């Protein structure tokens, strides 16, 4: 709550009566901002922000796990297959150049 203050701390001031257009206890702005639709809308926006933040965090976590797992499991494999491919190409080239090696 905004009006609770810690010892020696600074707290927000109490909510003053909002400036009213027509005077009286219930002004237009306060009526709108306390109406049902707006408070529902605010609640939905809060929930939406919460869910979006959680989704972003879990997507980030999943991306991290997938990325590091790919780096450890797949990248050495690609590198080794590429080297094997180069070695095969070299041997094939040498075989065509010099003739097949005697068995």
């Amino acid at each position, binding site marked *: 709550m905004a009006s609770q203050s810690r010892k020696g701390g600074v707290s927000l001031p109490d909510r003053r009566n909002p400036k009213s257009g027509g005077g009286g206890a219930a002004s237009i702005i306060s009526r709108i901002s306390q109406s049902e639709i707006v408070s529902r809308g605010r609640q939905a926006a809060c929930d939406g922000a919460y869910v979006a933040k959680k989704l972003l965090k879990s997507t980030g976590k999943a991306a991290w*796990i997938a990325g*590091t*797992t790919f780096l*450890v*499991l797949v990248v*050495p*494999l690609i590198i*080794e*297959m*590429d*080297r*094997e*491919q180069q*070695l*095969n190409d070299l041997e094939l080239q040498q*075989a*065509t150049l010099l*003739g*097949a090696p005697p068995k």
Partner: protein
Amino acid sequence: MASTTVKTEQHDQPPKEKVVEKVDYLNLPCPIPYEEIHREALMSLKPDVFEGFRFEFNKGLSPQFALTHSVSMGVTEIPSQSPETIKIPTAQYEFGANFMDPKLMLLGRVLTDGRLNARVKWDFTDNFSLKANALLVNEPHMSHGMFNFDYKGTDYRAQFQMGNGALFGANYIQSVSPHLSLGGEVFWAGQHRKSGIGYAARYNTDKMVATGQVASTGMVALGYVHKVSEKVKKFDFVHCLVWDLYDEFLRPFFKLQVSLASDFMYNYMSRDVTASAGYDYILRQARLRGKIDSNGCVSAFLEERLNMGLNFILSAELDHSKKDYKFGFGLTVGQ
């Protein structure tokens, strides 16, 4: 002068007709020893990942006798009660001597902290063999040793084990068909007053090996290893990467052996389940093993041949659930 012609690809043999052979039940092959029943799965799925630096030097003094010197600097983990593991940096030097004869094998290793490991394997007849294994440490009552007596029959193997702490065990495995072998074991541990019985089965063909093992200690272990090695068209890296991932990773090219392994372990006493899957690529210049686990653990182990007698090792283990990452590299010199 003979003219040299470039040999085009030729078939090794004309294709044979598939002959259905009648199974000769009196002449079955000898099965694999009981303790090696999971051998293929273990070789592919459990490389010794390490953390830190490792250097090994093998020097052969004669065709049968060799010395090894090994230095390893890294971190060892101590199991602790808190969820975080305690890691202590250690460094050690290990000296070892091997004597390999067709009939007799002797192996000894000494470490700087005083541990001595010795192994003997002696085939004193064609069918009988004796194995012994000892580990001596400085702390009292922590050393242990084990003797195994093996008998190899025509299509069965039997083994009797004796260890310190009044540990006795026996196991027996028999070939039931050219592909299937079944076995069982019993053991009794006097020190802990425990006894147990277990059964194992192994089915293997040229292309695959399936094993299963159940024990009364609550362990159920199943394993499956599939060997893929075919001759395929020339490998096009970019094309395969874009169009067909299966072609890239599972279809190897000449002189390439790939094993895909998967493993399932279940303990019905403690309700602990672990499944893992991995691959083992044996290329001409390198050997790469990778594994992923259901505990969120990913590990890879690469041995690359830099030169004749010089091997470079890289190991990585990422444990995503405990956020524990271990990386190691090393060099192996010698035959």
